[in-house]
């Protein structure tokens, strides 16, 4: 099962490598990982998308919690949550395809943020699945480059992860 784990950790040199090292050393899956400082510059917020059996996910949470730098942790997928990922995608936009690409981008709430004679660069935010769908719609042939940030997650409503 896919899980999305969110954590707050000390914003210290090496903290990221402790998390990354834990996943590789223990053979856990890591689909994406995104991290940046929060409004409190001493803390970083990290979102990890992973998958595994319930037992494995339980171990992942425990092992992460055991890291001294990890201050708080929540498995967002255990409750209602929001998930967003940012993608930049560069596509070949020539001839008739230009119109069609614009239409597809508009329909998916994508923004064309850079244009040349041959190319569109499209910005799109959504769930990982929505981004996948978008790429599918455009088709591999036209895609020149994609950059994705990995998911960021947050609890819905009153669900808050804070120290």
């Amino acid at each position, binding site marked *: 099962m896919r899980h999305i784990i969110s954590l707050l950790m000390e914003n210290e040199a*090496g903290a990221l490598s402790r998390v990354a090292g834990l996943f590789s050393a223990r053979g856990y899956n890591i689909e994406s990982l995104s991290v940046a400082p929060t409004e409190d510059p001493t803390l970083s917020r990290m979102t990890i998308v992973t998958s595994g059996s319930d037992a494995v996910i339980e171990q992942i949470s425990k092992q992460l919690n055991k890291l*001294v730098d990890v201050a708080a942790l929540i498995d967002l997928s255990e409750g209602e949550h929001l998930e967003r990922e940012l993608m930049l995608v560069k596509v070949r936009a020539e001839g008739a395809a230009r119109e069609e690409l614009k239409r597809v981008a508009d329909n998916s709430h994508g923004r064309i943020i850079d244009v040349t004679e041959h190319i569109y660069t499209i910005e799109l935010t959504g769930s990982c699945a929505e981004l996948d769908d978008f790429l599918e719609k455009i088709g591999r042939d036209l895609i020149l480059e994609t950059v994705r940030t990995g998911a960021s997650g947050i609890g819905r409503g009153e669900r808050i992860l804070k120290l």
Partner: protein
Amino acid sequence: MELTGAEILIRCLQEEQVEYVFGYPGGAVLFIYDELFKQDKVKHVLVRHEQAAVHAADGYARSSDKVGVALVTSGPGLTNAVTGIATAYMDSTPMVVISGQVPTGAIGEDAFQEVDAVGITRPCVKHNFLVKDVKDIAATIKKAFYLAKTGRPGPVLVDIPKDVSNHKTNFEYPASVTIRSYHPAGKGDSAQIRRAAQMLLEAKRPMIYAGGGVVLSDAAAQLADLARLLNFPCTNTLMGLGGFPASDRLFVGMLGMHGTYEANMAMQHCDVLLAVGARFDDRVIGNVAHFAEVPRNIIHIDIDPSSIAKRVKVDLPIVGDVKLVLDELLGVLRGGKQTPDAAAMGAWWKQVEDWRAAGGGLCYKNSTEIIKPQYVIEKLHEITGGDAFITTDVGQHQMWAAQYYRFDKPRRWITSGGLGTMGFGLPAAMGVQMVNPGATVACITGEGSIQMNIQELSTCKQFHLPIKIVALNNGYLGMVRQWQEFFHGNRYSETYMNALPDFVKLAEAYGHVGVRIEKPADVEPALKEAFARKDDLVFMDFRTDPTENVYPMVPGGRGLSEIILAEEL
């Protein structure tokens, strides 16, 4: 007044009441060694290899309730220390390792003797720090000691660049420490503890399985009280030996790969299992699926939540300090009126006794021709009154020591269980002897393992450490040879120890006493004489039966009841 980083470090060690630091100097720690020189509160033990410094600090910590401290230089000093650090990590020894680092300006430039100490040690420390500013030294050392000894203990590395050890700042040692992201468990959940009490009282075939956590938490008294109150059988893991008295009738021996038949059978067939400070590792329960074939309720007490439900499903987890949890559990049981089901307990004990008889106990066929290694350990137990501190290396000798030295007290058994590090025994014994001066300390070893840190005979001479080395010299890397005999068609690939040194002369060359013992009749007199020499290190080279195997044995990956007993005797 402003002090240098090095002065501050030494002052911090004094504040932490550190008596001994085990270490080895080098360029990156010159300022630190200079400050060590200028004072005499913190004494330094100069080892002959950094691995030994860490093992010595480890033995020091395990045989006392103190934090071990090691000090090494950057680069090769640190990499030599890594095996020691990993050993301490696997067995949860409280330890602070201080390493020198190249100056901050040179970090990342492949400077002379630079390695990424924090990176290399990251997977085998509880936590580590690189101190980039002299102002952070005091607080970091305070945190390091706090982390090392609280919660599930473990080694903490503090890497100090050379320039930082020479910069100056005001010194103030923090009176207290809190780390907002670190909250070690204390008491267990009271409701869970009450449920556990009920589950134990309703058991028909109960079993207590106690590991190293009992020793680390100093909870041996509580464990004994609990087992006696309930009249439950108790087994220890390799790491837990001494956590329950081996001479108690409730003790069914060690369990696991080389555990007794009765311990393994009782573990497999119990209906309620109380796991205390133990982690169901592969050498203990063997095949997880096989273990799960018999339904049983498992209560697991551990300070580290990640140890619970890692390999086996647990019905009743209790996260907390073993001692505090057992105290509370005892209170609940004593406060209630219910007692275990007497009829069921009678039948269960009969079953356990039947297994004890069927397994034949721990046994070997003694000989008047050739020295049996088990006989040496039995005699060692007798002559030392079962009261010695025993360190070991890794191999057959380690298992025979575990089986035949019947430990009655905690912290007397010092062995590398998790990592299985050959070369641990002698340096660990040095640490044990330093913190227990006057005590009897024996290192049980093999002719393979002892050569991995033999240079420490020199340290023992310098610091007058009268350790007794009991080498069970079978001429083979015996444990590997045993596996080759069982599982690889007797092809003894690279396990014959050719060109062995003359250990007697070797001991003498280092200024110690050496004796070779070749006949069974000489075992007892030799041990008596050696242990009578209170002030000398005596190296006893026992020539033992090269073909002897360790029994019983649960082959790797097999189930506990698939145990192989000793050959027909």
